[in-house]
């Protein structure tokens, strides 16, 4: 029993480490995006750093207005906040795990919500990139917009749904076990 508790704590610590790394990455990126947008608004000119869309603007001849850049930047930031929301939902699960409340419906719901947030980020950025591509009239292929980051978040999102279903089943089995005399 002690060995099992030790293994569970190790797993919990690993999960917490991944969670903290995710938070640091997300906040770092969000600060970058906000700084870029703030510079854009302050100087009403494109900052030196490239725009954070995956669309390749290197040989672009079309003039894109600063206002358009601003709208896309704000859209990106709003969609990026879904990662923060998803990580916040995961934080709820870690709190419940720490309290040893493993098979609770709240954990299943939290995983589902975080999955939805990650998918919202993944598909949201893809839609914004496609819109930006169309706006800038660039002849890039849409498939070039499918970055590793996007695919990782789609996979993680669906993984959260899978975990949600597992924990939901766990709750049912636990209830059945409690009603077994």
């Amino acid at each position, binding site marked *: 029993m002690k060995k099992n508790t030790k293994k569970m704590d190790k797993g919990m610590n690993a999960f917490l480490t991944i969670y903290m790394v995710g938070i640091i990455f997300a906040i770092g990126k969000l600060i970058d995006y906000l700084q870029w947008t703030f510079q854009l608004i302050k100087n009403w000119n494109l900052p030196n750093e490239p725009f954070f869309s995956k669309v390749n603007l290197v040989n672009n001849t079309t003039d894109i207005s600063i206002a358009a850049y601003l709208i896309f930047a704000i859209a990106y930031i709003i969609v990026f906040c879904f990662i923060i929301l998803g990580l916040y939902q995961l934080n709820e699960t870690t709190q419940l795990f720490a309290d040893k409340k493993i098979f609770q419906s709240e954990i299943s719901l939290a995983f589902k919500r975080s999955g939805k947030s990650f998918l919202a980020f993944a598909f949201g950025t893809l839609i914004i990139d496609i819109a930006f591509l169309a706006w800038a009239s660039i002849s890039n292929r849409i498939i070039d917009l499918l970055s590793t980051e996007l695919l990782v978040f789609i996979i993680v999102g669906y993984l959260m749904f899978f975990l949600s279903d597992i924990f939901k089943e766990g709750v049912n089995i636990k209830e*059945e076990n409690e*009603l*077994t*005399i």
Partner: protein
Amino acid sequence: MAIIVNLDVMLAKRKMQSKELVEILGITPANLSILKTGKAKAIRFTTLDAICEALKCQPGDILEYRIE
């Protein structure tokens, strides 16, 4: 569920109180209540064995299948 638990009937026949049975079986009064009220999802053979031993009866005296 169509399985009826006739524990109350057997307790009355053996003139035994629920409290006594709980002590013999080593289960909580809450669990016995779950069993008596038909809320239980399953019963372990070890529990059924202990009930039959305590009430000196057959499993069929405790469990009844009634078509709904």
